[in-house]
């Protein structure tokens, strides 16, 4: 946050004027839904705002400097979002405590990425990069862990950075699109997806749970409370979860897969990746 001077950020009126106009236009357009099979893809103002903002970067309206100045606004904007989530959780504290076991255990859902994505990464020809890529969803604490353990320019470091960058650029938009679609197309309850929305990033949680609210407005309070509680839990325990479970498990699974493919290679002279 201290990289750019906040004073110059505050005085960047061109940036703020553009952001105000983007928000006004996109909110005035409102939300649309597109039916896809049994589900719905929700197009929310925040999605238009993201892509219009990105598009503006490639026009003379927004310079490199404006783009850099936007960063502190995101960071401090997220603090307001967290405050809003907090005051939504407070009145619902009893419901949250009642749902405590589910909240705690769904953190284990992160392991889904290891079993689903690690084989795919290895299949696509990634080697030790795949450990960095798939041990977690690569938020800041996980990047810190991998860089700390393997170094920034290691294969693992490159891998974690690839997913980190994808998440930074498309994470919120991607989760926003699939959460609405999955919640309307699958038999799972929207509150289960609300808990899954708390992946440990404020903007991703806002996008994912925002789509859920768009599809189930009558559950708004509960969705925000469950997603927010899950997000706080991910933020506070995510790192330790990676250290003690996620990363060791990924490394173990990786070495098992490598041994099998080496045996195959030794027997039949398989492809050289």
């Amino acid at each position, binding site marked *: 946050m201290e990289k750019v001077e*906040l004073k110059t950020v505050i005085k960047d009126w061109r940036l703020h004027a553009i952001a105000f106009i983007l928000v006004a236009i996109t*909110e005035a357009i409102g939300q649309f839904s597109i039916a896809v099979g049994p589900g719905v893809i929700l197009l929310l103002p925040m999605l238009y705002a993201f892509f219009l903002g990105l598009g503006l970067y*490639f026009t003379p309206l927004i310079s490199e400097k404006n783009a850099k100045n936007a960063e502190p606004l995101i960071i401090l*904007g997220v603090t307001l979002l967290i405050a809003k989530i907090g005051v939504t959780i407070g009145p619902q504290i009893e419901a949250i405590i009642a749902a405590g*076991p589910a909240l705690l255990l769904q953190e284990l859902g992160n392991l889904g990425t290891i079993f689903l994505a690690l084989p795919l990464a290895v299949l696509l020809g990634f080697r030790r990069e795949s450990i960095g890529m798939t041990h977690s969803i690569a938020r800041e604490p996980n990047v810190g862990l991998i860089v700390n353990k393997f170094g920034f320019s290691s294969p693992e470091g490159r891998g974690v950075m690839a997913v980190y960058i994808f998440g930074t650029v498309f994470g919120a938009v991607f989760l926003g699109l699939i959460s609405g679609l999955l919640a309307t197309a699958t038999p799972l309850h929207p509150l289960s997806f609300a808990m899954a929305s708390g992946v440990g990033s404020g903007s991703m949680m*806002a996008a994912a749970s925002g789509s859920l*609210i768009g599809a189930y407005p009558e559950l708004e309070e509960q969705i925000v409370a469950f997603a927010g509680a899950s997000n706080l839990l991910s933020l506070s325990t995510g790192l330790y979860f990676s250290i003690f479970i996620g990363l060791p498990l990924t490394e173990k699974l990786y070495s098992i897969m490598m041994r099998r493919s080496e045996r195959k290679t030794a027997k039949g002279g398989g492809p050289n990746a």
Partner: protein
Amino acid sequence: MLKSVIEWTWVLCIFGVAALIGNWFGMDVLPWEAIPGMLVLIAVSLVGLMLEKALPFSMPAVGYIGILAIIISLPWFPGSDYVVAWTSQIGILALATPILAYAGISVGSNWADFRKLGFRSFLVAITVFLGTFIGSALIAEVILRWQGII
């Protein structure tokens, strides 16, 4: 510290204006009706940011902010009725839209990095996100059903 606090206040207020505009256009809440709630959120954020600087623990500001906001809105906290009533005038999506607007503008400068990743990384990253999201939802579904909550 004082300089930081003043600068944070400015940035939070600018962001607050963007959110109030969105709240007005998107949810038809007039800005002056949402101002008390926005001031509460800004105050909570400021206290959290100050605690991060002042306290020796390595907890990020959002950790303090979340806990603080939960405490002041608990039913038995004095004045929590006002906190809840005022902040309920601000929709969560009204806060999310400006975040993503600024994020879109900011992401442009990472675009070159992103294009270097290649299509294979893109596929793996999508699977990583899908895996976590669906994995968590499945576990939550099983437990919530077992408890009879849903």
